[in-house]
C-alpha cells in the first residue's frame, strides 16, 4: 500500500478513477441481469444459481481484463493481472462489482425461473 507521501509525489486523477469504476460497474450490472436470464432458463436453484453468478461474474472480469486492461497495461511494463494502471487496488477490480449486480441478477433470475419453470 503506497503511503501518503507517495500519493503526493505521484498524484492520482480522481476523474479517471471514477470513469474506470463506472465503466466496470455498468458492465457488471448489465451482465448480471443477462446471467439472471440464463440461470432462469437453465432452471438453476439455490446454491447452484449463486455459484453460476459468481463464476460468470469472474469470467466477465477476466474478459474485461484481457480486452480493456491488458493491452496497454502489459505494454507499459506491468506484470500479468496487475491492474494498477487503471484501478487503485486489486480488490476494487476483482471484487468491487460482484455485489452490485446481485440484486439485478436475483430479479431476472426469479422472473425467468417463474416464466419458464413453475
Amino acid at each position, binding site marked *: 500500500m503506497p503511503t501518503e507521501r507517495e500519493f503526493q509525489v505521484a498524484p492520482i*486523477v480522481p476523474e479517471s478513477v471514477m470513469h474506470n469504476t463506472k*465503466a466496470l460497474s455498468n458492465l457488471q450490472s448489465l451482465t448480471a441481469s443477462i446471467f439472471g436470464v440464463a440461470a432462469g432458463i437453465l432452471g438453476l436453484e439455490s446454491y447452484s444459481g449463486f455459484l453460476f453468478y459468481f463464476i460468470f461474474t469472474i469470467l466477465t472480469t477476466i474478459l474485461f481484463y484481457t*480486452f480493456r486492461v491488458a493491452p496497454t497495461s502489459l505494454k507499459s511494463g506491468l506484470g500479468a493481472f496487475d491492474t494498477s*494502471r487503471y484501478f487503485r487496488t486489486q480488490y476494487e477490480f476483482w471484487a468491487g462489482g460482484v455485489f452490485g449486480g446481485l440484486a439485478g441478477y436475483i430479479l431476472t433470475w426469479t422472473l425467468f425461473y417463474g416464466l419458464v419453470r413453475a
Partner: protein
Amino acid sequence: MTWFSKSTTTFGFLLLAHACPSSSCYSAYEHSALQSHRAASLSSLSATTQQAAASSSLPLDISLETIVATVIITLGLVLNTAKLRPIQWRVWAGQIERAGEEGARNSSGEIDKDFVGNPFKLLESRPGFVDIRKQRKEFAEWVKQQ
C-alpha cells in the same frame, strides 16, 4: 470495432431468445406430462419424488445454447465498454499530450462527454505571459491584408 461488438451482442441475444422459448415449451410440455403421470400413480409417493427430481433437468442442447449465448453477449458487452483512463497524473497527462482528442474517442467515434481536454490548459495559457504588443501587431497586419 464497434460494429463487431454490437453484432456480437445482437447475435448473443438472438441465441438467448431462441433458447428461452424452446426451453419454456419443453418444460411446459414436460410439466403437463408429469402432472398426468402423477395423477395416474398418486398412490406411490416415491415415484413422484423421482419425477420431480427428473423435471429439473434440461436437454443438453438447450443448456449449451444458453451458456454459449451468455458468453457471447458478455463478450459483446465487454467489447462495448468505454476505454479506461490511467489513474496516475503523469501517465494520464502524457497520454493526453500525445493523443489529444483522438485518445478520448469512444468506440463509435464520438468524443466522450466528460472528456476535459488538457488538464494543464489553465497553466499553459496564462494571460500574464501573453505578448499583447506582438498580438496587436499581428492583428494590424492581418487587417491590412484584408
